[in-house]
């Protein structure tokens, strides 16, 4: 137990009211250079923070197709609600402006920094510096801002002109708004007439509060029904399976495209997409805790089984096979990839 003279205790008390100026506590430890360089990755508009490296749009296109197109589309045009990275030039003063890297982003450093630190979604900080340069070059190319042979590097970085770099002003509310809306407000006879000009219910886009509650028993019924109907079929599929190890290995490679949304194996968790352990041969919509799209729930209720045929058709053209699916993946184009991915998913049965 510490013995405190009363005077010191009083001094300590008075300090709580007015903290001492620039008091040092000697806490923490010095950060090592390696630690700072591991975390201090941000890049500023003048290029400060850019590492050495380079890449062009042709290389970038390949990487983009593999790692980015699932959400952003092959041409950076965006899939579903995922961000569109290209287009929208001269739309900022129109209704519903399209704000892309090309039409809106004022600094190229922002794109490089964001791709480098935060992308791909679900696999951040997995890209090499050259890959980041190449992807950014491809995004610029998709916006018609550079030619396909332009090599983006730490040295050419400041040569790129961003169309909207002068399109921003610093917050001016103090001069444009505050004076207008300050003072004693009207209390009586403030308007002659009040009319309802718009009703939210016309749009009808509010989530249904009862929806979740009523959906729960229905989902449970589906699960039970599906389990009974398909038990026999599942057995068939599983006894049939004699997997080609080479094909499984190829499928594991193809699965990289799926990895940003789906997990497999021990300890797998639902992400953007459900866990895929044991999906092949099983009834659709069965993964616990995953919120499926309504079309998938409906298909599951009708007894959809992810057998090889259905899964292959779905993965070839997801949106054609299941209109309204939440899966934003565009589909696998090669038959070989399809066979491989199905084999791989069979290999991760449990």
């Amino acid at each position: 137990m510490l013995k405190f003279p009363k005077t010191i205790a009083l001094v300590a008390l008075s300090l709580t009211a007015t903290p001492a100026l620039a008091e040092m506590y000697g806490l923490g430890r010095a950060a090592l250079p390696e630690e700072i360089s591991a975390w201090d990755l941000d890049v500023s508009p003048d290029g400060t923070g850019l590492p050495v490296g380079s890449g062009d749009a042709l290389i970038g296109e390949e990487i983009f197709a593999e790692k980015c197109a699932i959400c952003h589309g092959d041409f950076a045009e965006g899939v579903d609600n995922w961000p569109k990275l290209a287009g929208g030039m001269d739309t900022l003063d129109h209704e519903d402006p399209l704000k892309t890297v090309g039409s809106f982003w004022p600094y190229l450093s922002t794109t490089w920094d964001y791709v480098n630190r935060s992308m791909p979604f679900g696999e951040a900080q997995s890209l090499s510096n050259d890959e980041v340069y190449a992807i950014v070059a491809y995004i610029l190319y998709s916006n018609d801002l550079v030619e396909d042979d332009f090599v983006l590097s730490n040295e050419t970085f400041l040569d790129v002109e961003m169309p909207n770099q002068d399109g921003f002003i610093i917050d001016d509310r103090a001069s444009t708004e505050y004076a207008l809306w300050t003072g004693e407000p009207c209390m009586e006879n403030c308007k002659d007439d009040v009319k309802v000009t718009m009703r939210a219910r016309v749009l009808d886009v509010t989530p249904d509060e009862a929806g979740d509650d009523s959906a729960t028993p229905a989902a449970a019924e589906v699960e039970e029904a599906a389990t009974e109907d398909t038990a026999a079929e599942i057995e068939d599929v599983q006894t049939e399976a004699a997997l080609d190890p080479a094909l499984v290995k190829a499928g594991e490679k193809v699965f990289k495209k799926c990895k940003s949304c789906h997990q497999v194996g021990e300890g797998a968790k639902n992400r953007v997409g459900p866990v895929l352990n044991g999906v092949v041969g099983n009834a659709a919509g069965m993964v616990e805790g995953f919120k499926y799209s309504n079309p998938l729930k409906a298909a599951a209720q009708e007894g959809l089984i992810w057998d090889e045929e259905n899964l292959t058709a779905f993965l070839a053209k997801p949106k054609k096979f299941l209109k309204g699916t939440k899966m934003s993946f565009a589909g696998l184009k090669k038959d070989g990839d399809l066979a491989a991915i199905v084999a791989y998913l069979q290999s991760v049965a449990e």
Partner: protein
Amino acid sequence: MSKTFKSKGTTRRGFLRGAAAAGAGAISASAAQAATPDPLITDVQPWAQGLGDGVDTTPYGLPSAHEGDVIRRNVEWLTADTISSINFTPIHALDGTITPQGCAFERHHSGAIDLRKDDYRLMINGLVDTPLVFTYADLERFPRENHVYFCECAANTGMEWAGAQLNGAQFTHGMIHNMEYTGVPLRTLLEEAGYDTAGKWVYVEGADASSNGRSIPMDKALDDVLVAFKANGEALRKEHGYPVRLVVPGWEGNMWIKWLRRIEVTNAAVESREETSKYTDVLANGVARKWTWEMDAKSVVTSPSPQAPITHGKGPLVITGLAWSGRGAIKRVDVSKDGGKTWETARLAKPGEKMALTRFYLDTEWDGTDMLLQSRAMDETGYVQPTKTQLRDVRGLNSIYHNNCIQTWWVHENGEAENVEVS
């Protein structure tokens, strides 16, 4: 604050009519007569006879099972998925001002991550004498403070710019919460590292995969920004940045970096994605405002509202709501029942506090006719919450963020309410 309570003028006949409309509802002084004895009183109920749960049943409690609908909700069509997304506080069902952590809105850019205190590190680098690394335990050894602040997402009410869209205060105004934070002033940590007074900014970033990062002017960083680890007395929840988040009083929620891992003193703003391509405000001429950090004064009636209709017929009615301002304390809230023709000043539950939610009540007598309910906040700067028309006149229709317009609920004779716009 002047208190408006209109029952004094009501006749006895008026009271009785009110009671009839309310069915079993009783009105204070002259209670309605019950036809038959209430079995909830005359019969011995199971809970008055048997035994309840022991003290070892619930080591950490959840809300009553009968409050299962008071939960965060999301709007599926709003975002591409639920990982980089947002949900909404059920403000229509809450009262007082403190938001329970368990139903306080969440906004993630790459999901709510699980980060143990033991694995937590906070770095201060850039223009400082000594770049430092702190552990969680280090942070708890600095003198700490307690403050109540609201945190509002800049996009709160953003879906309402183009027109009335969502039926529910939760959805129109629920990107907000208000908690009592415990933490260390950012100033203390900057002084510990010996910040260079030439550095005009601090860049703060989180430990999650989105690396959400924002630039904050040094003046603000030294003023009232808090490195917080407790909220409402207990550890932060995972979804709010456990174990450590930044609290930036009065400024847009995106700057309240969760899972705070690094503070860099810089000469200039970094111009990160979150402060250029997002959280900027496109005006009608296509030019965008940036660095619109402060959340202007705003209010909303939380009940009655579309998710909280009047269920008791005419008679005494409590109209209540929340008001707040990122530029100081709320001084006054007015309520209109006729779409803004006439206004009455509401009662503040207690005097407004800086950058914190203020609860207001209008204790009134409902005559059973329809109402166009609005609330209008004023803060200590004299700023008066504008109408949507006033905002559109200055900013055009293409804004997303910082919509602090007056909200209108059309309450019908049957007590139901809907989200509308009025002339």
